[in-house]
């Protein structure tokens, strides 16, 4: 089974917020609903005055949200995504505080929790998740976990060799 990953490199994030709007559009999040990916501005980080960090579900290896979900609405797929079945969700919100990334969003209109699904529908069509497709600075990258790791390794090796 091919594992897929959404890789985040905050050092490249320029704070344009395109990912947030791309996410809202893709998931039809109306009005003021929060997007599943959020850009956090951090002032004074590692010697820089301003940095931005995109925060989104990391599709954890051992997802705490799944452990606390009383109805089994959350599950981890073989490809590595943590998906939420809205039909099973009762909106209890138990998953929200246990997420270290605050990546689960309660939708008060529908009374359920919503989250990043790695744009499964787009990926099926051969497209990248919308946030990745519209990230201008490659702060968000999507692909096969193994090849992304290979790339990272060779990049780090290249930097060490310099």
């Amino acid at each position, binding site marked *: 089974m091919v594992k897929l990953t959404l890789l985040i490199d905050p050092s490249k994030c320029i704070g344009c917020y395109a990912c947030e*709007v791309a996410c809202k559009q893709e998931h039809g999040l109306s009005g*003021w609903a929060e997007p599943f990916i959020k850009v956090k501005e951090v*002032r004074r980080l590692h010697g820089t*005055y301003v940095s931005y960090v995109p925060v989104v579900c990391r599709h954890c290896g051992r997802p705490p949200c799944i452990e606390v979900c009383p109805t089994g609405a959350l599950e981890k797929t073989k490809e590595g995504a943590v998906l939420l079945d809205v039909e099973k969700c009762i909106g209890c919100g138990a998953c929200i505080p246990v997420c270290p990334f605050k990546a689960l969003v309660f939708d008060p209109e529908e009374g359920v929790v919503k989250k990043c699904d790695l744009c499964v529908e787009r990926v099926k069509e051969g497209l990248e998740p919308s946030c990745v497709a*519209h990230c*201008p600075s490659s702060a968000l990258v999507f692909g096969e976990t193994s090849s992304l790791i290979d790339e990272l390794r060779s990049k780090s090796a290249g930097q060490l060799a310099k």
Partner: protein
Amino acid sequence: MRVVRSVCRMCHGGCGALIYVEDGRAVRVEGDPQHPVSRGYMCAKGLASIQLAYHPDRLRYPLKRAGDRGGGSWVRVSWNEALSDIAKRLLEIKERYGAEAVVFAHGTNREYLHMVYRLAHAFGSPNVTSPGYVCYYPRVAASILTCGGLPIADYDGEPKCIMVWGCNPLHTSPDEYCAAQLCRALERGPKLIVVDPRPTWLASRADVWLRIRPGSDVALALGLLNVIIEEGLYDRGFVERWTVGFDKLASHVKKYTPEKVEGLTWVSAGLIREAARLYALSKPACIQWGVKIEQNVNCTSCIRALVALMAITGNLDVPGGNVLCSPPPVTRFTEFMLTSALSEEQRRKRLGGEHKLSSMGSVVPPMHVVKAILEGDPYPVKAMVVFGSNPLLTWPNSKLVKEALMKLDFLVVVDLFMTPTAELADYVLPAATWLEIDDVAFYFYRAGYVMARRKAIEVDECWPDHKIIIELAKRLGLRECFWEDVEEYLNYVLKPSGLTWREFAERGWLEAPKRYRKYEEEGFRTLSGKVELYSETLERMGYSPLPDYVEPPETPLSNPKLAEEYPFILTTGHRSPAYFHSEYRQLPWLRSIQPDPIVELSPEAAKEIGVEDGDWVWIETPRGRVKQRVKVVPGMHPKVVSAQHGWWFPEKPGPEHGCFESNINVVTSSEPPYDPCFGAVTFNALLCRVYKAEG
């Protein structure tokens, strides 16, 4: 599902867009990976286009004022009724006061703007006002005068050093650039110099960040020229063969030593030397300049000093430097604008004609319009027709602007929403968004491209601006200067290319071939055929032939007494990735990114005035005060505050919609001195005080 390949226009508009349409309704807008410049990039604004097109508050049919001006009572009328009555009223005013009593206005780089000029000129009015006096047009005109064209940063040519000056192009795509180009260029690891009073993401990561005192840009540029010339870092071969007046420039900048410039710019002499050497010795190097260099009394000089930097370092028209692109084969703007239709007599009546370079380009600085309306000086202005502009927010000294608009006999506003300016109109006409328009998009014109914008949807009775102009022209009896419909107009624009609109739309874009070092064969397109570091043309017109520094009127150096009362330096108009000037505050997808107007100040300043991040403060100048929300920004100079512009609150009740609460132009000045050539006012160097506001 149908996919329409088009070109976005949420900002000036050039990025390729794919519009997904289902049952006649646009459901999604995404970046177009096949677009030659944006290559799939689409910013937050572009991605929110659907919310703009289908916003419940959009104007959907023509409205006629029913009660007092600004009273908020309207009746729905038909297009024919509206346009016929507008034409009748404009002709009456022309008959009684002369055509010059009707002023036409347009907003920032609207792609129909040349048609607004055509309409005014055919009607007989020399008066078209626009942001052109402080935005982009000075760069175009002063560059043409100096080196025969607008020098564009050549990102595709792989610059080894990029100097970003007076803009934040990662958060907005300015002029003929797309933010993605700079992102791609940065991937290659060039040296980076940033000239900006704000510690932006780019400034934070620059090799050299020059934290300039707002408004002193030209002093810094002259200091860089001083170092490069004194240390012999310039390109001798190019200077000897291709410039005019180098010796005069060299002796002129002698006095701008880094030590002197440090006193003017608050940038250390050491950093000035470092930046000068880095820019001059990294080959090729480009300058990415922005609107802030134009927004004070030194507008012309600053542009010319930066072109001089490009020239003497041998970076003009070389790969990776600043290039002079040939335009694609479409009808030339001068023909398009029908300037020839205007009699010499009418031309001489152009308001603000003393700013000769603006006037040569038919640009009228708006404060001259305000003066003519209020004081009848030099003659009364009685009517305005405004296309895609919100003068109450974007012209200096907003309260005076309101007084002027209230005094008009007749005001027509064409817009997407009922803006604070539209609220004061006699007629409000509903314009189409970019999703509803067939058009030739000019955004990348000076970078060598025109693009096809294609209509994907229709929304109620909203009309594209060019259709409104054509239909109004017919009713003004100007049919012979115009076209039957939009398609005929588009064919006219494309005529030199040999393509019809339909063929062009199929093709997507037109591109002019890119050639470097054209001067080697043709010279520069100036009077002398060379780069005119010293301009005899400017001298003959009575202007300074060399770039010089004048202290802006309201600074601690020029007015220390006022600075005791108003201790902070205020620069206005820093950009948000969510907005385009006064637009989009009503779109939740964008407003949620930044719900409130932001004023940035240093931790030291915050402590001094006793405020914290998120507090509301009053920003006060001798003109008045407005409220914005504090963002404490480490790295800002303790004496500098940076406020946003364009803020009104569509959710607040009309007719004002809160347009005097946070709108920074309430506190800017429309008084002289102006930049002599263009009439630019000072938006980037004012004195203010800042103190805590409740709520």
